[in-house]
């Protein structure tokens, strides 16, 4: 099926919306930084900007405006980058982000920019589902099928996430009936991981629940 006129209009509207919404958010970030009193507003505006940038990146890759750049990426390093960036947001919500990366985890064959966007979206999305100040754990470990990255908490409320995931048989997902609040970043994460050939799903470890995806281990570096 070719691109219809309404697809093109929608695409153009999204591009315009992205620019129009970004500008006042940047002002909010700058003003709140200048008076140094509104750290929560500052953190929330930055979160919204990251959401916009990640949706925009997803749009560009999925419409082939830009191509994926697959290369060995040190997942632990990328997770640490994301964790540092999101620390003020976590703090503003009364949460603490703990990073647990398995030793010698190695690299994944992936696109670093898209992976970073997917991890940012995943972490922000999980924070939106958390219903009280809590610890959030960002993990990465090797499993037989690849490199598993997960974000978990003991305070996740899955009901707030109106985004569906593929079932175990990987047949087509249920239609999304409504998207609000928590779902925007989770949906973005789901789609960005999908670009990287990874399926985002619900996961649990001990008393923690959250979301996880498995990336392909880099064959280049694993042969060294």
């Amino acid at each position, binding site marked *: 099926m070719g691109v219809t006129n309404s697809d093109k209009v929608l695409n153009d509207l999204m591009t315009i919306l992205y620019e129009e919404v*970004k500008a006042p958010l940047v002002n909010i970030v*700058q003003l709140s930084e200048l008076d140094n009193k509104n750290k929560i507003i500052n953190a929330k505006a930055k979160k919204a900007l990251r959401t916009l940038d990640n949706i925009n990146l997803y749009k560009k890759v999925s419409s082939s405006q830009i191509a994926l750049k697959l290369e060995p990426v040190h997942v632990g390093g990328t997770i640490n980058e994301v964790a540092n960036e999101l620390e003020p947001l976590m703090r503003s919500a009364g949460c603490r982000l703990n990073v647990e990366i398995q030793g010698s985890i190695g690299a994944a064959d992936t696109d670093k920019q898209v992976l970073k966007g997917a991890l940012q979206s995943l972490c922000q999305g999980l924070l939106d589902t958390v219903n009280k100040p809590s610890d959030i754990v960002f993990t990465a470990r090797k499993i037989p099928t690849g490199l598993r990255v997960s974000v978990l908490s003991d305070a996740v409320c899955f009901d707030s996430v109106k985004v569906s995931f593929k079932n175990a048989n990987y047949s087509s997902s249920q239609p999304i009936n409504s998207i609000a609040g928590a779902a925007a970043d989770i949906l973005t994460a789901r789609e960005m991981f999908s670009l990287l050939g990874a399926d985002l799903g619900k996961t649990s470890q001990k008393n923690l629940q959250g979301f996880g995806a498995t990336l392909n281990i880099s064959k280049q570096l694993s042969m060294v």
Partner: protein
Amino acid sequence: MAQILVVEPDLTTQSILLELLIDHKLVVVSEPNEAIVKASESKPDIVIIEISLAGHSGMEFLYEFRTYNDWDDVKIIIFSKMILEDTVLNSRSWEQLKISKYLYKPKTSLIELKKSVEEILNKK
């Protein structure tokens, strides 16, 4: 104290930059044509420019700016809402235009912007 020429169409960002860089002499304009006039009146040490300008190309302004030999040593900081990858800047044009820094607004704190200005001025 340095002379800084700011080319920025957004009024809120203009007032933020005026407050942030209060230790320097700022001349703020919304359009590139005004910038050429102001630079002619008083040569800036640094130009801080938003290249995403409605109705004008910030890049065209920079190319024109660099045709003036008298302004060859003026430093340029691009402080833009556009991601670098979405611009037409490549390593060749970067060198041609002698860009000192490209700062993406959503990811650059005001402290980082101020620090960049101070670093560039200290190198002069």
